[in-house]
């Protein structure tokens, strides 16, 4: 989230799209309702009428997978109606940047497309530059090639008629949402967009969010109280686990994982440290070498020296363009490229798409280590329904893991607040927390290397590691230490003392930090700030509910990101009643500003607000994504239609997919699979359900797999409420109980009736009689930027079952 949970109350218009917040983030709704009570309009745009819709001002049904068309229509409306916030757009975004002649867009394809590789050469998506290298800007916005005008032309195709045809949303409903939300383009109004995995789990997932960013920048809604783009992050510590990069492509703190072509730290830094030619851009990533060296120092301690490149050479290097994500790991497993691995606290044999492929792939492993609270569809895959254990070779080590109240440490909430939890009771039986599994495991492996030798032992043997896991010890390692005596603002810090802020991290090996974003969370002066429970606020802070003294948040306790965009060039808040920061008597008051510099009116020392972007501007034109600088509507990988109004490019030209015998797709408008399926979870169960299905009161509340469908579809198929049904896709079939409801209605898409059904994915075979994985139906097609699979839209058919075997 750019903002945080409490801040939602400051909003004048709330657009919930790609999320069913009331169902999946129930307590967030407290703050949505508080905004509503104060006069905000709350809108839900979603395929299904749900608990969220019921509490909103109104619900707008949309066909799953058409969000960019809907949002592109809103961009077009903003431009045509002049609802955009001119001072903000001209001063703080790249609307004024003039595009190089090389950029082009024709019939759904951007310039530089290579059809064979399904990728773009992105070099043509560039800005015109002057002799110094600075982008050419036209603050009058008259240049036909400036971003604003190119964008206006791009979205002029997104007329109400075109958008309505493909999304299934009536023109009247489109206008209703556009008008209300775009009224926040005024300086003293704020609108927020709340999304979740309903936006990310598409082959165009990243571009869904890019489209919302364009809207929020045009309306001046980023950086302000009640504004922002707010990802309602689902998993308990998914914010923290992303920050600490349990991901192949990053190192902790959002640095690219090293690639083979960056053989030295110097080469790595050169390729990853941006340079700006705009004098008043902060270009914060210019500091990257300090953070990366401090990370290496944290990992390898005294072994990391300037002479040996701080052990950079020891790190694994990925191949450029190679994908090592979940989906690729599973495909390599199927092709016998994997020996074994660790699956901790996740249940892929129930929640991964095209689950029949995943279950078959896991059989190819020699060994598997699973850490869980309960036996799961993953740990027990070798005895799944229909499988003969005597043919399954995989050795499985199943480790009992500790639950939250049985351990201590921190999590980061969706608003980036760092919250400490204490250990209440000892772990059940011999259960252990993950730290108490991995720390001794690595020590055991180190011991083997010490005794026996082996391949390349240095990175293991010279690791800055611990004998035992201690959460406080690692929280301090994350914050970081000085490795030699250092004077900061006249105060001497000894070697081994904590670094007070990331501004003090250095690239010379004198500091360590396992994640620069968290530096300042545990200091010599104030101790462990994640434990703070002080509700005090200044009057200004209390107006918007910043709570700066409760816990701590990254970065550097800044509660609203990009808050320099909430003020004008003089540092006066656009909305004085809900000010985030203000320049008063030569200093900032309110939230922690995005950097200490004075307002932009100070031409020498002032800085642009978007400090993480190289040139300091919010990116209406975003050249960094793999599938285009502007979001463009493409149909999901499986679509009920064979054409759409925006171009002849039916699906994303870049989406990724696999080609095994399991990776089957329905053809466009395939008569065998005419119905759109979307999947979701529910309040009473958690994701794949491996935990909550084993809690009797939760299972009793939501006992078995169902499929929601409209009355019209039920009539067409001869299905009654409560009937057992079979849902089929090109990849598998699933049994469920029919829930015939008015919450779903047929859509009219490109002139024909299209039905959409919805199913939760929380049920699996290890809980007897409740049904088995819905994900067996979904597609192994992925967003090209993230490789997130498109589990929110695929094509299926449905029929009444003669008998049920999966559901009791």
């Amino acid at each position, binding site marked *: 989230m750019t903002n945080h949970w409490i801040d939602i109350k400051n909003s004048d218009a709330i657009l919930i799209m790609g999320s069913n917040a009331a169902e999946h983030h129930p307590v967030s709704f407290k703050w949505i309702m508080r905004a509503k009570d104060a006069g905000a309009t709350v809108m839900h745009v979603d395929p299904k009428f749900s608990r969220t819709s019921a509490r909103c001002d109104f619900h707008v049904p949309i066909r799953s997978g058409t969000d960019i068309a809907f949002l592109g229509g809103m961009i077009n409306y903003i431009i045509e109606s002049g609802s955009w916030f001119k001072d903000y757009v001209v001063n703080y975004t790249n609307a004024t940047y003039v595009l190089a002649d090389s950029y082009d867009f024709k019939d759904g394809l951007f310039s530089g497309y290579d059809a064979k590789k399904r990728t773009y050469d992105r070099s043509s998506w560039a800005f015109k530059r002057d002799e110094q290298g600075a982008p050419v800007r036209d603050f009058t916005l008259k240049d036909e090639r400036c971003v604003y005008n190119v964008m206006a032309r791009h979205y002029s195709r997104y007329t109400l008629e075109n958008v309505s045809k493909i999304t299934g949303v009536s023109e009247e409903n489109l206008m209703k949402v556009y008008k209300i939300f775009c009224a926040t383009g005024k300086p003293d109004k704020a609108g927020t967009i709340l999304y979740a995995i309903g936006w990310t789990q598409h082959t165009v997932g990243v571009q869904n969010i890019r489209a919302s960013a364009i809207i929020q920048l045009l309306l001046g809604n980023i950086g302000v109280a009640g504004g922002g783009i707010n990802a309602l992050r689902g998993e308990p510590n998914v914010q923290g*686990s992303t920050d600490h990069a349990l991901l192949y492509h990053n190192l902790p703190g959002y640095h690219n994982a090293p690639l*083979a072509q960056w053989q030295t730290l110097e080469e790595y830094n050169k390729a990853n440290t941006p340079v700006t030619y705009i004098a008043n851009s902060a270009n914060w990533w210019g500091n990257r070498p300090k953070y990366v060296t401090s990370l290496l120092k944290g990992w390898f301690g005294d072994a990391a020296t300037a002479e040996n490149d701080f052990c950079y050479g020891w790190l694994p290097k990925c191949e450029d363009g190679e994908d090592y994500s979940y989906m690729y790991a599973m495909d390599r497993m199927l092709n016998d490229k*994997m020996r074994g691995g660790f699956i901790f606290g*996740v249940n892929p044999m129930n929640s991964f798409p095209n689950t029949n492929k995943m279950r078959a792939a896991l059989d190819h492993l020699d060994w598997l*280590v699973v850490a869980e609270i309960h036996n799961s569809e993953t740990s027990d895959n070798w005895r799944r329904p229909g499988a003969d254990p005597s043919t399954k070779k995989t050795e499985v080590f199943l480790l009992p893991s500790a639950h939250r*109240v049985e351990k201590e440490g921190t999590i980061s909430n969706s608003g980036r607040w760092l919250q400490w939890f204490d250990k209440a*009771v000892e772990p059940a039986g011999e259960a252990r927390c993950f730290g108490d599994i991995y720390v001794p495991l690595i020590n055991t492996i180190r011991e083997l290397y010490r005794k026996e030798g082996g391949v390349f032992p240095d990175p293991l043997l010279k690791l800055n590691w611990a004998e035992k896991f201690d959460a406080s010890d690692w929280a301090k390692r994350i914050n970081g230490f000085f490795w030699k005596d250092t004077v900061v603002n006249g105060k001497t810090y000894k070697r081994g003392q904590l670094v007070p802020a990331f501004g003090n991290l250095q690239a010379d090996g004198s500091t360590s930090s396992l994640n620069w974003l968290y530096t300042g969370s545990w200091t010599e002066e104030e101790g462990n700030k994640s434990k703070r429970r002080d*509700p005090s606020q200044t009057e200004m802070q209390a107006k918007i509910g910043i709570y700066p003294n409760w816990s701590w948040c990254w970065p550097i306790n800044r509660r609203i990101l990009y808050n320099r965009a909430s003020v004008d060039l003089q540092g006066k808040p656009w909305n004085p009643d809900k000010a985030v920061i203000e320049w008063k008597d030569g200093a900032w008051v309110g939230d922690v500003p995005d950097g200490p510099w004075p307002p932009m009116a100070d031409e020498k020392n002032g800085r642009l607000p978007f400090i993480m972007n190289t040139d300091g501007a919010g990116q209406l034109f975003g050249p960094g994504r793999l599938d285009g600088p502007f979001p463009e509507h493409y149909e999901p990988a499986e679509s009920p239609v064979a054409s759409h109004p925006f171009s002849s490019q039916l699906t994303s030209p870049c989406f990724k997919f696999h080609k095994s015998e399991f990776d089957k797709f329905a053809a466009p408008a395939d008569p065998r699979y005419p119905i759109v399926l979307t999947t979701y979870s529910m309040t009473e169960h958690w994701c794949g359900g491996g935990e909550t299905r084993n*809690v009797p009161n939760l299972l009793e509340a939501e006992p078995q797999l169902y499929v929601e469908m409209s009355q019209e579809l039920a009539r067409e198929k001869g299905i009654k409420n409560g009937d057992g049904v079979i849902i089929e896709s090109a990849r598998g079939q699933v049994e469920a109980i029919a829930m015939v409801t008015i919450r779903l209605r047929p859509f009219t898409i490109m002139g024909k009736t299209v039905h959409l059904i919805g199913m939760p994915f929380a049920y699996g075979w290890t809980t007897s009689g409740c049904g088995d994985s819905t994900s067996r139906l979904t597609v192994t097609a992925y967003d090209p930027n993230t490789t997130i699979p498109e589990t929110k839209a695929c094509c299926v058919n449905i029929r009444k079952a003669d008998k049920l075997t999966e559901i009791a």
Partner: protein
Amino acid sequence: MAYTRRSFLKMVGAGAMCLSLAHFGFDLKEAKAYATSLKIEGAKEVTTVCPFCAVCCQVIAYVKDGKLISTEGDPDFPVNEGSLCAKGAALLSMYTGEHRLTKPMYRAPYSDKWVEKDWDWTLEQIARRVKTARDNDFIVKNAKGQTVNRLESVFCMGTSHASNEECAVIHQAMRSLGVVHIDHQARV
């Protein structure tokens, strides 16, 4: 005396209960006696965080004689103000359930059952398999002759259920082994 929001809520709560019971003709003394014999009386209060969505509602766990006896939303936490959803409210039964895994288990190749094992044996076995895979499959140089120090045949999946400190441990552990197939729930 300075009232915190919580002590104030406690007073109001107790007052409201007395009022409602008195309204039905109960003797107030009995009501007060009942209030002091609540099951959390004398229990240690421990602050924790609900283990589900990233609203991260704070929870008070009540512990007596080393056992968890009750959980409730932390009324002082500015985000949830004491509220919890159905899952958060079911925290206690998550710990008292019989279904939990409590011992390391092992399933041998082609076997049809789990066997209980101790931790030392289990960690030694896993360490041996990791080392064998690493020693056999480690890729020092790629086809172009660039040094890549990579182990492709072992993967790590999960987890966003780990604390920040555990995530830091997992990332460091995997990179030191040379593992590149690292992923978790942020991608599904």
